[in-house]
Each structure stands twice: as C-alpha cells, then as structure tokens.
C-alpha cells in the first residue's frame, strides 16, 4: 500500500513497507542521496532532515509515523542558502559525508535562534558527529551565517 509523503514541498507516493525508515525511502526510492546513512540508531546525525522545520533523524523514523509532516532535505536548500554559503566560504567540509546532516541541524538552529551564542551552537550541533573534526569551522560558519543578511526567500523551492 502506497504511503504519501510531503518531501521538499512535493507530494510523493512511496511503495516501501511502512516500517521502512524515512532515510532508506529518501535514498533508495526517491533518489535523494544527499541525506546519509551513518549509524542507523540516531547517534551520529548524518541522516538529519527537517520535519515541519524541526531536525529529526531519518534513520529512526518509519514512514508510517510521518503522516502529513512536511519533510525538508538538503536538496531543497538549493545550494546557496546562507548556511551553505558560509560552509563554502570557510571550507568547512573535509570528507564531507556528515555535512548534509550538519547543515540541516544548523538551518534548524538558526530558524529558531537567529543569533545563537557558543553554548546554543554546540548544544544544537552535539548530535552531529564529524570524524574529520571540522567542528571548529562548523561553529564559525554558523556564526558567519547568523551575521549574514536574511535570505530573500526562506528555503523554499524544492530542487526538482
């Protein structure tokens, strides 16, 4: 039985079994491979997406539990969101594998707290592991994005 999901502003009928974690539906069925598998148990944050604007770990979210929540993935940011611009400006990524999750957590943080202090930043980002250790630049990039003028339009138009 198909389940209908709202992903990046688009209604999607998906055929995976209801117990399938959203992560695998995004990656295997919808081809949205920007969201990564890192641990499968909500420990590393590589699979972070937004559900109604709040960060969630898609590896632990069965599609049967999503209902009408609006899912936002890295692909919907468009590549030039202020957070992404800051990430590129400061050359935050190293291997880059965790960065989609890092960026989604940072986007959610700045949406709820536009001028976070150090404690708010590490508090919001501690769920996202980076084994390359790009943590320092992640902190700097969030401050850089917070200082940037607000985007003309919120992360809106889905990529496809």
């Amino acid at each position, binding site marked *: 039985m198909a389940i209908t999901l709202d992903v990046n502003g688009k209604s999607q009928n998906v055929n*995976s*079994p209801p117990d*399938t*974690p959203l992560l*695998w539906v995004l*990656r*295997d*069925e919808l*081809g*949205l*491979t*920007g*969201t*990564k*598998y*890192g*641990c*499968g*148990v909500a*420990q*590393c944050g*590589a699979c972070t997406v937004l559900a109604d604007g709040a960060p969630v770990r898609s590896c632990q979210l069965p599609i049967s539990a999503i209902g009408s929540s609006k899912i936002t*993935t*890295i*692909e919907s*940011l*468009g*590549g030039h969101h202020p957070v*992404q611009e800051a*990430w*590129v400006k400061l*050359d*935050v*990524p*190293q*291997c*880059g*594998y*965790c*960065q*989609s999750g890092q*960026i989604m957590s940072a986007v959610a943080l700045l949406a709820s707290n536009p001028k976070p202090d150090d404690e708010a*930043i*590490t*508090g919001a*980002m*501690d769920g*996202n*592991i*980076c*084994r*390359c*250790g*790009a*943590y*320092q*630049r*992640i*902190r700097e990039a969030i401050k850089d994005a917070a200082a940037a003028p607000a985007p003309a339009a919120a992360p809106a138009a889905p990529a496809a």
Partner: protein
Amino acid sequence: MKKPLKDIARGASRREVLVVGATLAGSSLLVGCSLPDMLSAGSKVKPGAFGPFLKFSPDGVVTVISKHIEFGQGNHAGLAAIAAEELDADWTKVKVEQAPANAKLYGNVNMGGTQGTGGSSAINNSWTQLRTAGAGARAMFVSAAAAKWGVPASEITVSNGVIAHASGKQAGFGELVAGAAKVAPPATPTLKSPASFSLIGTDRVRRKDSQAKSEGSARYTQDVRLPDMLIAVVAHPPRFGGTVGSFDAAAAKKVPGVVDVFEIDTGVAVVAQSTHAAIKGREALKVTWDESKAEKRGSAQILAEFKDLASGKTAAPEKNGWKGFDSKGDAASAAAGTNALEIAYDFPYLAHATMEPMNCVAIVGKGPPRLIFGSQTPTLDQLNTAKLTMSLPGAVEIETLFAGGSFGRRATFQSDYVVECVRIAKKVGKGRPVKLVWTREDDMRAGYYRPLVHHTVRVTTDAEGYPATWRQRIVTQSIMKGAPPGAPGGDGVDQTAVEGAMGSPYLKATPVVDAQLLTPDVGVPVLWWRSVGATHTAYVMEHTVEQLAKRAGKDPVEYRRALYQKAGAKRHLAVLDLAAEKAGWTTPAPAGWTRGVAVHESFGSVVAQIAEVKVENGQPKVGRVITAIDCGTAISPNQIAAQMEGGTCYGLSGAMFGEITLTDGQVDQGNFDTYRVLRNSEAPTVETYIVPSTAPPSGVGEPGTPVIGPAVANALFALDGQPRLSQPFVKV
C-alpha cells in the same frame, strides 16, 4: 592462456606488496623494475596530449587529474595548485578530476610506483611530477602562441590564464588548445623558483569540492544507484577467525525484496532490491558458526599477556622474539642504573569509525570487472580483484569516488571489503551491479583496528637531569604481519610499530639506548590508524620527557630545547619556539586553564602543540590549542590549518574516549553509543602557525593527530602531578 595470466597476477602481488607495505607507513623502498608495466597490463587508460595529469577544454577550463583519492585531506586542492602554479593558470578555472586506476600513469612515487594514497604522501610524491606537468604544458601553449602570432616564444608571458605578447595579442588556454596539443612536450621543462610562486602558499588555494559537499551532490559509494543494482549485506562471524558452520535462509528469503542468500568466504550474504530489505533479510537469517579456529581471548587477557612479555615474566617465543630497533652503548647499564624513572603505558584497540562505513559497488561477469567506490589503493584492489576474476590486474576498471573518511581503514593488503563485494558480484554474475553495504555495527566489529600496545620505559638521568640511559620495550601486534609472505615486518622490525620512538631526538640525545620490539600473534586484524605508530610512540616519548623535566626541576619547554640542541633537531626547535611564542608560554595561562606542550615528527613534518586544558565535570576539557608545523613548502595554508584542526580532533577523540574491547574474543562495541567519539562541544579551537620553508612539501594529513594526546596529558600532569599511563582518559 590462463596459466601465464595467473602467474603475472601472483608474481606481481608479492613484489607490489613489498613496496606498498613499506611505504604506507611512511618509510620508502624503491624498487627499480618494470612493475608498473606489469600492473597496468590490460588497461585501456591512455594519457592525453598534455600527459596523464592535465586536460584543457575550449572554454578555458583547466582540469588537473588527481591520482590520489580525496577523503577529506584537501589533497585535491593542493595537487591542483601545484600544476596551476607552473601553468600560471587562472585558479578560478581549475577543476579536479579523479584519475582512473593505472599504476603506470598514476603510481605513487613514494610507493615504488603502485597507485595508492597513504603515509601522508600525496602532495610530497606529486610535487615534482605536477610541477613538471604544469611547466611542460605551459611551454607547449607558449610555443603554439608564438607560432600563431609569428613572435619569438621568449617574448610571450603567461599570467593568470592569459597568454600575451607586448604587441597586444593575447589568448586563453582554451583558444590555443588545438595548436598546443600538437607541440612536442619539452623533455625537461624549466620550473619556477619558489620566490616567484604566486598561487602556492596563498589563501587563494582553497578546496574545490566545498560546494558539492555542502549541497548534498558530492557522490560517495553509498550514493551509487545503477539500473538493476542489488544491495548486499553480509552476516559476519562474531569472532575473528570464525567461519560458517551451517545456515537456514528460509525466513530471510521470505522477506519482501530479498533476492538471494548464499555463503561466501567471509560469512553469509543477503542480496536484495533495497538496503532496508537486505538488512531485514539478514535479521531473519539463522547462522551457526564454526569457531574452532576463532580468536577467543579477550582484550584484558591480551594486555595481561603483553605485560608479562614486556616484564620478562613470560619468555618471548624463540621464533619472532625480541628485536632491537635502537641500540647504543652498554645495554646492561640501561637496565642497571639507580634512581630510574620506570613507567609503563597501555593503549587499547581503536576503530577508525569513518563516517561512511565500508562499502563497494562491483560489476562482474560481463566485460572487464568494474569497481565503483572510494579506492585508497587502486593497484592492490585491482590485484585482489584480478585474482578472483582471472583478469589481468590492469584490466580491472576502478572508478574512484569521494570516500566518507578513511584514516587508514580503506588500505588493507587484502582489500577486505572490496573482495567481499567482488565475491558476491561474481556469484550474482551477468554483469549485474552489486552494492555491498556495511552497517555501522559491521564496520565496527569487522576488525582492522589500531593495535593494542604496551610500552615499558626505564630512564636514568645525568647530574643535570637529562637522560643518561634509556631502556624501552614495546609489545604490540605487527601491522605488517597482515601482508602476504615476503613483505617487510615478518622477519625484521615492523617500522609501523616503532616509528616515532625510533629516530626520536630524545633517543639521539641519550648516550645509552636499549630499545626493543616484540610482536606476538593475536587473531585480531590490525591496521594503520591515522599517524600509525605515532599514535602511541608520540605519547610515550612526550609524556615520559614531561616527567623527566619535572624530576629535573626544569621548565618543560626549556628541557625539550636542551634535548633538541643535543640531538641537532633544528626543526623540532623551530616549531617548539614558534608554538611557545604564539601561546605566550612564559606568561601565565588564562585563569582556570593549564598549559601542556608536546612535539612530534611524523611523515616528514614536525608539529608542536600547546594545549590549554582544564577539568570540567570530571573530564578533561581542551580549549585553545596553539599549533606550529614545519611541513616544508606550504601549498595551501588554509587546508594545512584544516588538517591540524581535524587531526587534533581525531587524536583527541582517541586519547579521550577511544577504546575497542573484546570479551572472549567478541568485540563489545558496535555503534557510537558504545564507541564514544569527540563531539562539537568537546572540540578545541586550534590555531595553526606554519614555519616558512622552501623544502619540498611533506605530510599534513597525519602529523596533526599524535601530538594532542600527550599535550593534554602533560597539562593534566602539570595540574595534579599524576602521570596518565593509559588511554582513553575517560572510560565510557
């Protein structure tokens, strides 16, 4: 026809392994033979008009082809900058492309010409090669312009991608590419003098992949999707050395999406149409393991055995016994002197825990075997695949993608997970793509750890408190033992176990030295872990010297300076002085913080760090870390800083929290809930200072890792007077 092919593959692997084995660890062994010819036999890869490293397109884009994988180190930026500097290209129009597998064209100069990335060698081994490639292509464009414009080549200049003549004529690389491609490349192009570098060493040398990696479009193995592709997961034995006894696949095969279940050498494979189906299929699988040959010792027992060997309570085996790696003066006096500092250190097994667990895509059974994944050692992966598929090694095609970290894990002699994927793809056959996916638990429990290590050190001092005799014993598993027969390490001293102690300026400054290594057999697979031997030797040397400085009543920086002067270690002195100056060593630390210093040379570079540390909620908290590095010519200061920041976090993560334990041979940890790693709030702020140098560039990816552990331990020692004799500092 079959027999000769087999002989080529087998003959090549032994010699190849010799070379790669010695060099992945940072040392080098050059073998002059036609090995690259042999290894690339059957390859369809051909260089273009401008050689294997450069391509020019009519729109003016310059493509630098990287023979090295990018898995975080920033080497793609550095490699491109080397060629772009000699070309005088417009940096904004330079792109990087990953080379295919071909040992002859893309061999690592420091690895005897086999293709591979490791030992922090990417920039160093490419330095002359890419400068020559850039300068040669530049000369070809100048010749083409001279011919087209009818002016002497000597009057033509190239700057920022613009080829120009005083008459006003000018063109970009794109406009002249057709003519330049026909010019014979110069035999020995003239290289720039370092004084005229305009790109190298500037902040303009930045990553080329940040945009792709910030928008989710960078392609990793995990992201490969091909028509008709199957996903495979494997049930591995719970203990190393175990094998499949029997299995019942009935329930697994009933899981929707599961296509097949079969036994392979390393376990039972479940292949399915989706990742989730494969994982669920494996959960439903029932396997009985044959553990008659499995390693059943726990890590506590292994450590206890190592301690007994080091103390002499247990005699070393006659075969593969104690081996000296540094010896001078009267060894007996090193054991005898009174008032010695006697200490022992323990280091646990460590997992690499890359963010992207191991994985691979293989296509077998239709045309040449094809692999798509983050290949760290393409030549080894070709050889190991060729053996299974009866191909010429060079005919095995590899498309190397970005990899989500490695830290050494992707370079095994056996190409472990690659071979596992090829076996499954071979069984599936008919050229149907198979993606092998390891879950986090598979990755953490499948072995290849930094070995467990035990050191004992006994130092006596002279009247001024400096070392007079130094006796050291190291007991650990040999990494090189994992190499097939004939590789170094089996008979002699495994350099990967002693590097950093061997060659230490502290041993050079000591009149009597007796240092030996013992490498007992343990059935736990071990491997290089970012900075390899230095992960423990740097700690032992630096924390020992710290304790000696205190006994001598001398300032830790001054004490080291004196030893470096005795040893003639000028580069150590320079980085120490730079770090001390930038940290304000002679002034009090910020209120509430205590400073610790450490210095270590690895992979041709020397790093000094001064860490500001305090204890918060019962565990060390590291604030500012002042880092000074001498890495020869600095290509990309920004990325050198990035590697110091990242290397420091990696080393700190291991020293603070890292520990793989085994109970009765079974790995206790499986995921990040039990294998704790450093998180953002625990990550220090690293300031990087680079010693100016015109020497050839040396390693950057690894040298930042081993210094932070002892720097933190030395700060804690200054704080409470307690030496830290084992890692991790914080038990999970």
